């Protein structure tokens, strides 16, 4: 359970939007996290490793800066056990690469440019994720 935080939610969404616009404006790229991360793995197609690491370094620095600026730690609650973490992580990695994007690339950037592929992918993964939580919590009655 978590509390409704519309102000923080909108402000965070705005920052994500600005990040996507900045990246497209300066480098001509989609702000897709799975794309940046997965292309650090073989087979290698280009020499953009440092650019990709720069995006990941920005992500990693964010919670540190957030804590310094707000004085509050970032809330993080993970109740899943190791076997579930392993299975879910593998599925997220597999699905994002085979589908050419994740919540950022398809869900934000692709949806924003009204890409048909992204609109379909986003609808499917949203619906399936909602169904998965429904089955886990209300049918199987797990955590």
């Amino acid at each position, binding site marked *: *359970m978590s*509390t*409704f935080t519309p102000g923080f*939610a909108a402000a*965070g*969404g705005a*920052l994500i*939007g*600005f*990040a*996507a*616009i900045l*990246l*497209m*404006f*300066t*480098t*001509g*790229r989609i*702000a897709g996290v799975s794309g940046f991360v997965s292309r650090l*793995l073989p087979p290698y197609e280009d020499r953009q490793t440092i650019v990709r690491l*720069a*995006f*990941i370094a*920005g*992500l*990693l*620095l*964010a*919670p540190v800066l957030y804590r310094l600026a707000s004085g509050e730690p970032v*809330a993080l609650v*993970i*109740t*899943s056990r190791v076997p*579930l973490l392993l*299975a879910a*992580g*593998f*599925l*997220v*990695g*597999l*699905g*994002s*690469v*085979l589908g050419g994007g*994740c*919540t950022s690339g398809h869900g934000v950037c692709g949806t*924003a440019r*009204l890409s*048909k*592929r992204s609109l379909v*992918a986003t609808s499917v*993964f*949203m619906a*399936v994720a909602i*169904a998965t*939580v*429904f089955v886990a*919590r209300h049918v199987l009655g797990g955590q």
Partner: protein
Amino acid sequence: MQIIATFVSGLLFGLGLCLSGLVNPAKVQSFLDIAGAWDPSLAITMATAVLITWAGYRIVFARRVPLFAGSFQIPPSSGVDARLIAAAAIFGVGWGLVGFCPGPAITALSLASWPAVVFVLAMLAGMGTARQLVAHHRSEMLRSARHLNS
């Protein structure tokens, strides 16, 4: 300049994840749990992010080229196939099970969270497997195309 701009973009993106709570799997699962104690906060996050990006892209695409690169690198928008739908469904199951997608999982690594480390290692294994599958599929296609040409 590309490296600095990409770093700043990653930083803004990560701050957005922290501020909205998208980095927190418990909040993500509350957002996905529409039949339970539903927390719609992250619907506002997604909607705001999409609207702002949509407006910003319209201005950016009025330029012929990006500021620090030779061209825009836009992935294909059309070509919805079974692979896309199956892949999105696989992704959705994983996302729903734990509440992590790639951006938040990577960001959570610097919160010294060992479950995030476990998740990211498995995610990298999944990504690596998928990249090998795609590369193999591509080389098979090339081979059969060459075969047809010769």
